[in-house]
């Protein structure tokens, strides 16, 4: 993004070609272009304004198309928009929409469809859980509309003409373009939604502008997508049919992949090394924009000991990240010394002295820090780690319990169900809690904003310099040094012990091409995919 900011006020256009399946010349395509992908759970909604989960987004991205898409490396490429201009004050974006874009019923996709879609997400009557996303984009009047103080038509988004969309912001938002591939920003067909009501999301009724149409949906069983001939780039779309098959058990998912029913499936924790050795051309591991941590409760409700930075630092140092990554997870995850995922675009981690040390040195230092803080054999520290029900979280919590035991810290493990866990996190009813955060877009602020005083910040850590840095980053021309400094503060202050950065370990059939193996958001598009002849 920074490179755009340095050339502010210039009319910007993408020189890249549209990114439909770019099949290298000479490739022999398979006769049958069908693809079966794995879903862990039911697709809860096919309404872009109501979807809330990752698998739902995976399906919606095929059925609809936003202003921008992501390519295989995570870079933003034009979708319905062909280019945009940004005003001098960085507050007004004007998008040019491609005139050839059509809905699956043949209607042209116009700027009004985006206006309607975005208003619909913000409208209190829709009660979208992702209304906050429109606020995150800093669109003018977003919060007032969500609060019901203004009507949806006062949202700062306007159709100048059929193919020109104007978006007004309250504050410069360097990551704006990166939000435009998110499902909440997809256009909506007013005519269809008003005619069909809540039933508009059913197969046969749903009208989308994506490369595929919804032809079948058996709740919790499967969902079928077929090529949309009205899609503007249909000529370059290769896969003709795709089926999302729900398999609720990840191990059975693997068995069904191996018996040929699925073309892609997640690898269960700990099985990647074996599968990689057995089928090196099928086992893949892709960095995935999520970070795992143990959050310390620093609020009034938290234990006194955790308010001492030396204690937090000691606990963080004692977590043997290498053991967790290499011995427990074994799927290409990386030890975390920063909150931002290492592979996030434009992010550069600061030098971290602790990272360079051996674990023995870290333990020595941790012991010294704890002693300095007044904890030792005569005054042992007792803590409770809370985690939500899951075999994997349990394995890690048990490991951390052992790591902290080396320091003389007695850890009690407290396993609670998911809703209780989140409820307690949000009410600061915990001491140390397992937590993970996944980025909404490919830019470090999606992680770093979490620790702002008014961020989600379950542990209620607060630091004035940090808040200022994150505020400055919104308008800065170069955010790299800012994010670097913010991570330094997190390393010094240890509001949480960062544990590891995610990777998605998958089994993918060797003839399936075009899946994004370098995109840290793991955003995939069927239209970019194809199967080669074996």
């Amino acid at each position, binding site marked *: 993004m920074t490179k755009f900011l340095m050339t502010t006020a210039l009319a910007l256009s993408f020189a890249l070609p549209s990114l439909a399946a770019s099949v290298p010349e000479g490739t022999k395509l398979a006769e049958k272009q069908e693809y079966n992908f794995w879903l862990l759970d*039911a697709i*809860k*909604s*096919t*309404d872009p304004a*109501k979807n*809330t989960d990752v698998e739902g987004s995976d399906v919606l991205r095929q059925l609809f198309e936003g202003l921008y898409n992501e390519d295989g490396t995570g870079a933003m490429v034009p979708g319905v928009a062909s280019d945009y201009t940004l005003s001098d004050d960085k507050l007004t974006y004007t998008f040019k929409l491609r005139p050839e874009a059509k809905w699956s019923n043949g209607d042209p996709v116009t700027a009004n469809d985006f206006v309607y879609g975005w208003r619909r997400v913000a409208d*209190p*009557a829709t*009660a*979208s*859980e992702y*209304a*906050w996303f429109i*606020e995150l984009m800093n669109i003018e009047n977003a*919060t007032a509309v*969500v*609060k*019901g103080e203004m009507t949806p038509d006062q949202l700062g988004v306007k159709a100048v003409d059929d193919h020109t969309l104007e978006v007004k912001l309250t504050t410069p938002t360097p990551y704006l373009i990166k939000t435009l591939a998110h499902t909440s920003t997809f256009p909506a067909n007013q005519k269809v939604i008003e005619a069909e009501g*809540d039933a508009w*999301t*059913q197969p046969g009724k749903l009208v989308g502008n994506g490369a595929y149409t919804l032809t079948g949906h*058996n*709740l*919790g*069983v*499967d969902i079928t997508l077929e090529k949309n001939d009205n899609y503007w780039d249909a000529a370059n779309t290769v896969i003709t049919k795709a089926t999302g*098959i*729900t*398999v*609720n*058990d990840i*191990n*059975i998912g693997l*068995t*069904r992949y*191996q*018996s040929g*029913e699925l073309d892609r499936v997640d690898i269960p924790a700990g099985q990647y090394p074996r599968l990689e050795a057995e089928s090196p051309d099928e086992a893949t591991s892709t960095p995935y924009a999520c970070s795992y941590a143990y959050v310390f409760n620093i609020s009034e409700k938290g234990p006194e000991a955790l308010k001492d930075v030396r204690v937090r630092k000691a606990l963080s140092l004692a977590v043997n990240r290498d053991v967790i990554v290499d011995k427990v997870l074994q799927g290409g995850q990386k030890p975390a010394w920063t909150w931002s995922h290492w592979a996030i675009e434009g992010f550069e981690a600061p030098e971290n002295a602790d990272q360079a040390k051996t674990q023995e040195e870290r333990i020595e230092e941790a012991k010294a820090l704890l002693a300095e803080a007044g904890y030792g054999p005569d005054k042992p520290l007792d803590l409770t780690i809370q985690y939500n029900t899951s075999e994997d979280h349990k394995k890690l919590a048990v490991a951390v319990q052992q790591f902290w035991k080396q320091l003389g810290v007695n850890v009690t493990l407290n396993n609670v*169900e*998911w*809703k*209780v866990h*989140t*409820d*307690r*996190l*949000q009410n600061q009813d915990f001491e140390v809690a397992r*937590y*993970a*955060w996944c980025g909404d877009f490919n830019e470090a602020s999606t992680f770093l904003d979490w620790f702002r005083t008014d961020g*989600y910040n379950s542990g209620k850590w607060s630091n004035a310099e940090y808040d200022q840095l994150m505020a400055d980053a919104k308008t800065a021309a170069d955010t790299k040094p800012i994010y670097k400094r913010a991570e330094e503060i997190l390393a010094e202050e240890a509001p949480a012990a960062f544990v590891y950065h995610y990777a998605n370990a998958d089994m993918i059939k060797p003839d399936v091409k075009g899946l994004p193996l370098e995109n840290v958001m793991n955003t995939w598009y069927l239209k970019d995919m194809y199967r080669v002849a074996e």
Partner: protein
Amino acid sequence: MFGFILRRIGVAIPTLLLLIVASFLLMHMAPGGPFTQERALPPQVLANINAKYGLDQPVLVQLWNYLSGVIFHFDFGPSFEYPDRTVNQVIAAGFPVTLTYGLISFLFAVLVGCALGTAAAIRHNSWLDYLAVGISIGAQVLPNFVMAPILVLLFTFTLGWLPGGGWSWSDPSFWIMPVIALSTSYMASIARITRASMLEVLSSNHIRTARAKGLPERKVILRHALKPALLPVISYLGPAFVSMITGSVVIDMYFSTGGIGKSFVDSALNRDYAVMMGVTILIGALTILFSLVVDILYAWIDPKIRY
């Protein structure tokens, strides 16, 4: 008899109401709500959602609205977890599936279980008896969450005969593994109960009389022994039938059938109050109905029983 049925229905309605009220209040007392998430929703967003679903009102008002919707309009409300659907639609999608594999499992379990138990009792202490007891103990100790992955491994991965999961109305090969996994342990219980009860009946006075007057053994068994021997089986079958047709979370999880067994457990974990209440009412009503059916069957089979 009619008086009895009327009295039972008279009791059933308040029982069901009590069940609804108790589950509703318990559900609302559990920590966290349907929209409690890892990333807390901003208050204005949460307020809109609560307003849409009426969650901003006092619990008793919500309870009244819910009850009146169910009673007067047969409307179980919108699902929180599946925002495109109403609870009626979620149940309409899942219950037929559960009902189908549950009914087939039930028939299979009853026929095979009764036959196995009767055969074992008639040939008491023979190899057939040991085999039947062996099968039923084996089937009983093998839990379905162990059996399900083994079935998939065997029939899908190794042999390639059956689809590893999913559901199709037109292709019964999808039904086979769920039926095996669900019916086995019920079948085993039925076999054990039938065998024990048959052994007891076979040594009773009226059977000795029947044999003494020279009736062929086949008639002794079918006409005089089977009916009384089935009484304990029937009292087992009532609740078993309901739990089979309302599904099993294990079957739904491992075979991804889309049945309501999984929706039920998910709704409780996700605090999807509406779906949870809908399935609770369905299961509650069926349980009450079939315990009544069992009582009627009892009276029909055993003339000694009078209500």
